[in-house]
């Protein structure tokens, strides 16, 4: 019996020919990503036990992103704790506020992490990096502390769910709609403990930004990680960041690899999808119901990349956000921010009546910059719509693609972004 990509990565790391799902290993970790919310607790645990070392300061990346710039004194202290540790232990890859943004998105663009490697972080969306053909997963502060100290994490070798996507996504339908559709089909724990491996000609044609959106949301189906095999798109993405193929190992699932389950998706049938409150699996077609929104939010590690901002600008250009809507755009990183300036997207946002906030996790998890008040209704390009996720527990969060968020912001209620497609526009104009 053959092996999947994930099994091959884990086998290589533990120095075995073969690993089998269910086996437990202490797996060497290539990269540990640290942010300021879950890392300080890990550091205090280590200090309290006199475990004052790091396994390798050149293999730790520290990027404060959840509560920066600090919104209160407690947040400032978390940041200080992370930074003082970075300085004390000589952590080599430190990304200061103003030179960073959302950790997962910063990291994917650095050229540090590579195919075939392992990555953990005290953040559930670490699975994001699986789009680079690596084994990346989120852990809690204790596991993080263990990884910082020993460079290893215990893993049960997971089984894999194969998601095979074929055909063309319709105009106006994006990878976010695809992943929301998959989570709707398999359920919010449909991939619990599993790796979600994406294959098929739709994925082959998809750019890296779209692929990151898919692997990023593996955790929303309970997945241990998402993963996509390396191809020319991956190689070109890495080459643009100074990484050549001789610096990494490509793994491919064997034709006779064993999958726990196979999910087949016809991309042409995927519609712009909105996950209704209060769970990401609660997907419906955008615009099925006329739901008035108070806030439209674009950002997060799922959908705050430059292609997302371009999707938003395409719809907002020459239009205005509805009077009763506040629209907040959060570029995922400083690089995305700058690119948006260069391309004139910022001007589009401001002219449309949207505001732009500093690159951070922001209101995605209700910490700052767009937190929802009682009964607020928000359409959001983020990843979770749990009760209280973005602020007050009575607020309603609808998850969607950036295009759907922008279309909804303009209309003032949840709207199918295909109403703004070029072809539809021509029809709309002649009808007027």
């Amino acid at each position: 019996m053959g092996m999947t990509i994930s099994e091959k990565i884990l086998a290589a790391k533990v120095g075995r020919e073969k690993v089998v799902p269910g086996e437990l290993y202490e797996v060497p970790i290539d990269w540990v990503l640290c942010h300021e919310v879950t890392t300080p607790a890990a550091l205090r645990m280590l200090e309290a036990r006199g475990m004052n070392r790091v396994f390798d300061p050149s293999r730790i990346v520290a990027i404060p992103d959840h509560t920066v710039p600090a919104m209160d004194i407690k947040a400032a202290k978390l940041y200080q704790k992370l930074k003082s540790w970075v300085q004390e232990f000589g952590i080599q890859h430190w990304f200061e506020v103003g030179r960073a943004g959302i950790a997962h998105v910063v990291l994917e663009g650095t050229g540090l992490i590579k195919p075939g490697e392992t990555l953990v972080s005290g953040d559930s969306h670490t699975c994001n990096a699986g789009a680079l053909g690596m084994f990346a997963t989120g852990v809690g502060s204790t596991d993080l502390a263990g990884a910082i100290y020993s460079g290893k994490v215990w893993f049960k070798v997971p089984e894999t769910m194969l998601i095979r996507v074929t055909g063309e996504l319709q105009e106006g339908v994006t990878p976010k709609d695809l992943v929301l559709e998959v989570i709707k089909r398999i359920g919010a724990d449909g991939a619990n403990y599993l790796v979600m491996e994406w294959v098929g000609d739709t994925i082959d044609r998809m750019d890296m930004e779209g692929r990151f959106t898919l692997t990023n949301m593996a955790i929303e189906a309970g997945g241990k990680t998402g993963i996509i095999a390396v191809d020319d798109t991956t190689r070109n993405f890495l080459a643009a960041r100074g990484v050549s193929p001789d610096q990494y190992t490509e793994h491919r699932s064997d034709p006779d690899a064993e999958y726990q389950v196979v999910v087949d998706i016809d991309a042409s049938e995927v519609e712009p999808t909105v996950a209704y409150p209060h769970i990401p699996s609660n997907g419906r077609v955008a615009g099925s119901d006329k739901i008035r929104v108070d806030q439209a939010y674009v950002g997060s590690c799922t959908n705050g990349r430059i292609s997302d901002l371009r999707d938003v600008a395409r719809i907002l250009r020459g239009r205005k956000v509805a009077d009763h809507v506040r629209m907040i755009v959060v570029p995922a990183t400083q690089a995305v921010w700058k690119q948006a300036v260069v391309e004139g997207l910022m001007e589009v946002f401001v002219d449309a009546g949207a505001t732009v906030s500093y690159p951070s996790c922001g209101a995605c998890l209700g910490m700052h910059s767009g937190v929802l008040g009682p009964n607020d209704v928000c359409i959001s390009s983020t990843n979770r719509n749990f009760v209280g996720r973005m602020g007050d527990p009575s607020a309603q969060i609808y998850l969607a693609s950036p295009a759907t968020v922008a279309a909804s912001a303009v209309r003032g209620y949840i709207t199918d972004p295909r109403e703004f497609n070029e072809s539809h526009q021509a029809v709309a104009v002649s009808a007027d």
Partner: protein
Amino acid sequence: MPKVFVYQREHINTDEIIPARYLTSDVEAELAQHAMEDLDGSFVERAASDDILICGEDFGCGSSREHAVWAIRGAGVQAVFAPSFARIFYRNAINNGYPVFENREVLEAFEDGDEAALDIEAGTLTNVRTGRVVHFAPLPDFALDIARAGGLLEYLKAKEVQHA
């Protein structure tokens, strides 16, 4: 006598167990004041030491925040039962030596507020009101090793001493 809190709902997530607005603290006693706040505002008031949580499928889904384990432990919950747990929450519990058990029968064997007797060694949870005894699978050996050591970090440290 410990009592049980029964929440039949599936997918009770870590945002509900401890909302992000409290994550600027990692002090267990502070987190405990807000345990389960967005699910059940009266939970902290009603919880006492050694209580037991019985919840629906996929308990602890969502964020990796270990604060979820600390918050309910701090609020006095001595163990959690659910038909299934989200992966990271389960790991976090094991790493803290905190007992969580996969079991479906408990959901029908208990009503909210029932008094219960938990025997982890024997693998039984008894409903004192009805006399019904639910047998549950013990923790896996690896989890027991970590619990005996006092948590993952103690376990790692002890192993290092052995190898030295």
